[in-house]
């Protein structure tokens, strides 16, 4: 039961935003509309006709399509096959490749997407995959689009393109149900907003009649709290990590920087600019990386995460479900996963110490869970992220690399994580923070490195880092002087 008594109307050709914190039930609602989940009660009408979908196919027939990150198609098939998957052109069961490719090309042309229809889908970027998905949904004749967090893994340029596409769809009279918690997007191109909280409908209103702080208040059910902690100038401590001329073929080149205790160095850049790859390299996950890494002044060679951890490096990965957590394991077990060697007594886990550790981090990070014994998958995104953070804090690492620390985290937890990052830096940790959210990088970093095409495009101090300047460096609309590696 993830939903209770949700009702609202949407007019044709309208972009209707569905907002709410993670776990508020907005995605569930989207999935019910698209026939993936079935409601226990209630109904919805399309053009005045009551509909009840038992499968995505029935929803498709009624003109409802869903664009969803996790529901992309078969990565092993070609773009064309994916677009026409539900009705592959054939002659008596034999594939008609010519017609297939023509049909797929027509679909892509319609939305102005440029990619080879013969390409394997798995080779496309997240943004391109999404375009293919939209083209395919359009090809089924959908009049209602459910878009579930479509921009969560897109770069800024790709997001802008999506925005244009949404406008185009609306002009054709397509209704869009836009599930997101990104305020800026909602204010840019949505007409009406429905806010959900704890599986319940809170309010539906025209966008023009509301403002950001009201929406946040409705979403979290309490007053807007400050998203970023007050910045306090701190003198950086001793150097913790220095890298010189790190290069990895096809990923990044000549990256050098040093990171001191108490610093939060932000890394900004578009998706694919080599940000995460550098983090992976430092953490010993890139065997083809060359260059020098110094930890506390000592030259080290890091060939595996184990070795990186031995040097006091921790890594909160971008994709917490795949790389951060063992979802089926208990929350507490996830927390101590990286520090089991410290709880090791002749090969046996010291249960009492483990319990104390878990309890203290539950308290400290205010993890909201029924107990430390429930599987990690039952927690909301923000609380899962806290588990991952706790995992590394329990190890007491001295250098912490954070890759998208607040992705898919609701507003309340976001503010808490931001405060925690600041506290950790103040306590002497050296933090390397990769983020696609500019406000986050700008507000939390004491220094900022901007990446473009695998190279350092610029190194900015806090004072000189403005949104415009960083954007310029990221996108490359800049003079040559900033291209020289630092």
């Amino acid at each position, binding site marked *: 039961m993830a939903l209770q008594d949700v009702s609202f109307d949407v007019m044709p050709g309208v972009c209707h935003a569905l907002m709410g914190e993670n776990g508020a039930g907005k995605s569930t609602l989207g999935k019910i509309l698209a026939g993936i989940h079935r409601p226990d009660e209630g109904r919805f009408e399309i053009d005045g006709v009551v509909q009840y979908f038992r499968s995505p196919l029935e929803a498709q027939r009624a003109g409802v399509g869903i664009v969803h990150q996790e529901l992309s198609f078969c990565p092993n098939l070609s773009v064309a096959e994916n677009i026409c998957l539900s009705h592959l052109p054939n002659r008596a069961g034999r594939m008609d490749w010519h017609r297939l490719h023509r049909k797929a090309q027509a679909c892509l042309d319609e939305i102005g997407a440029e990619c080879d229809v013969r390409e394997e889908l798995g080779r496309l970027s997240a943004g391109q995959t999404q375009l293919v998905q939209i083209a395919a949904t359009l090809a089924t004749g959908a009049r209602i689009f459910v878009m579930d967090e479509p921009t969560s893994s897109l770069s800024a340029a790709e997001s802008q393109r999506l925005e244009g596409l949404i406008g185009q769809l609306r002009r054709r009279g397509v209704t869009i149900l836009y599930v997101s918690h990104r305020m800026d997007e909602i204010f840019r191109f949505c007409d009406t907003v429905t806010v959900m909280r704890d599986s319940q409908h809170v309010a539906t209103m025209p966008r023009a009649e509301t403002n950001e702080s009201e929406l946040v208040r409705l979403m979290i059910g309490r007053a807007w709290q400050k998203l970023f902690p007050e910045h306090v100038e701190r003198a950086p401590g001793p150097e913790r990590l220095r890298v010189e001329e790190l290069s990895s073929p096809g990923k990044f080149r000549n990256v050098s920087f040093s990171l001191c205790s108490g610093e939060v160095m932000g890394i900004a850049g578009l998706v694919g600019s080599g940000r995460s790859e550098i983090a992976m390299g430092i953490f010993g996950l890139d065997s083809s990386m060359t260059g020098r890494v110094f930890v506390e002044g000592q030259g080290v060679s890091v060939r595996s995460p184990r070795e990186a951890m031995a040097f006091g490096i921790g890594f909160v990965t971008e994709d917490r479900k795949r790389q951060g957590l063992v979802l089926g394991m208990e929350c507490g077990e996830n927390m101590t996963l990286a520090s*089991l060697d410290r709880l090791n007594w002749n090969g046996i886990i010291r249960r009492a110490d483990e319990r104390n550790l878990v309890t203290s981090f539950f308290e400290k990070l205010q993890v909201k*869970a029924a107990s430390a014994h429930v599987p990690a998958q039952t927690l909301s995104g923000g609380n899962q992220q806290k588990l991952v953070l706790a995992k590394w804090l329990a190890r007491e690492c001295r250098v912490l690399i954070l890759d998208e620390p607040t992705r898919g985290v609701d507003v309340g937890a976001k503010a808490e994580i931001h405060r925690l990052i600041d506290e950790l830096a103040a306590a002497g940790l050296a933090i390397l923070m990769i983020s696609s959210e500019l406000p986050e990088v700008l507000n939390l970093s004491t220094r900022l490195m901007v990446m473009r095409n695998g190279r350092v495009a610029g190194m900015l101090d806090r004072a000189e880092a403005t949104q415009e300047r960083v954007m310029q460096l990221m996108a490359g609309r800049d003079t040559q002087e900033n291209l020289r590696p630092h």
Partner: protein
Amino acid sequence: MKIDQPILLNVESAPGSATVMASGRQRFKETGLLGVLLALGFLLTIFGGSLEERNRDTGSTNTVNKFLRADNLGNLAKDTSFFAIMAVGATGVIITGGIDLSVGSMYCLAAVCGAMFLNYFGPQGPGAGASPFWVVPGAIAICLGTGTLCGLLNGLGVVGLRVHPFVITLGTMAIYRGVAFVMTKAQAFTSFPEQFTDGLIRHQINWQGASLYPVPLAIMIGVTVLAGWYFKHAVTGRHIFAVGGNEQASLFSGLPVNRVKLKVYAFSGCTAGIAAMIMLGYYGSASSDAGKGYELDVIAAAVVGGASLTGGRGTALGALLGALTIQMINNGIVILNIDQNYSQIIIGAVIVLAVLLDRINGTLRDKRLARAARSARETQQELAS
């Protein structure tokens, strides 16, 4: 022993939040399977009928239940022990998300190696009369060592060659049996020192007029208890579950993923060696045909016992109970005088049914947990507002 408290955070142990740990611990996981076993036993007791049994001491006859009598139960326990021990090993592999198809062949190779050794020092062998004080431990070491070595080779293949365990163990399944075949030249080995058979594994006790062989049963219980404890309390045990639950996250958390895999395959081989040892001692012979098709029975036992083939789930006790369930059905088919030809159909159906029941049970548990998590969130929010 004190953990280095994170210097960066002013973490204090918080006695007030002890409730966080206390509530919601997962219930005993094998309740469902135990219920099935009890029901099965109950049905067999009622519908199995009874037979006339002669008391050896007094010569008088008395009526006993066909199922619920010492002879039958002892036999059932002995039959179960081989499979249960190997199923415990297979469960370790399955928890890491792997599979071991070579258990039957490892069992066979270990048995053959042990048999050749015992035969050499047996009453008719060239080494007859050797002191049992080293022949018996030698035989045990050879069985366990051969099994462990085979398992280790499986593990090296999985880790080193990066080939799916299904393929590796499919290959070694044929290879190990082939080696056994070549070694024995397809002949059976018998005539073992009595100290190993009747003196140890086939040690007999008489109880209420029935002869019972408690050693296989004791070894089975010992292996299960040790493995169960190891899975739950050892660092490696935790590693096994983590690797099976999410291999990438385990690697990113610095776990020795390859070493963990080596260990589970070696353990699976070791359990096959233990089972082979019991078989040698109990039946007193071995040939290269031993254990043919056991791999599927063993995997079936693990799966019925709640191990998930996708990894991350399984228990040692479950494996034992799973093996017991299958053997009990086998036993029941005999007791109920059902045509033997039907036994495979019935067992196959039971395997699917057991897994289905387990999944329903899991869904219910997930729902309960989700409800608990939601109510916790609500309380927190109430407290916050």
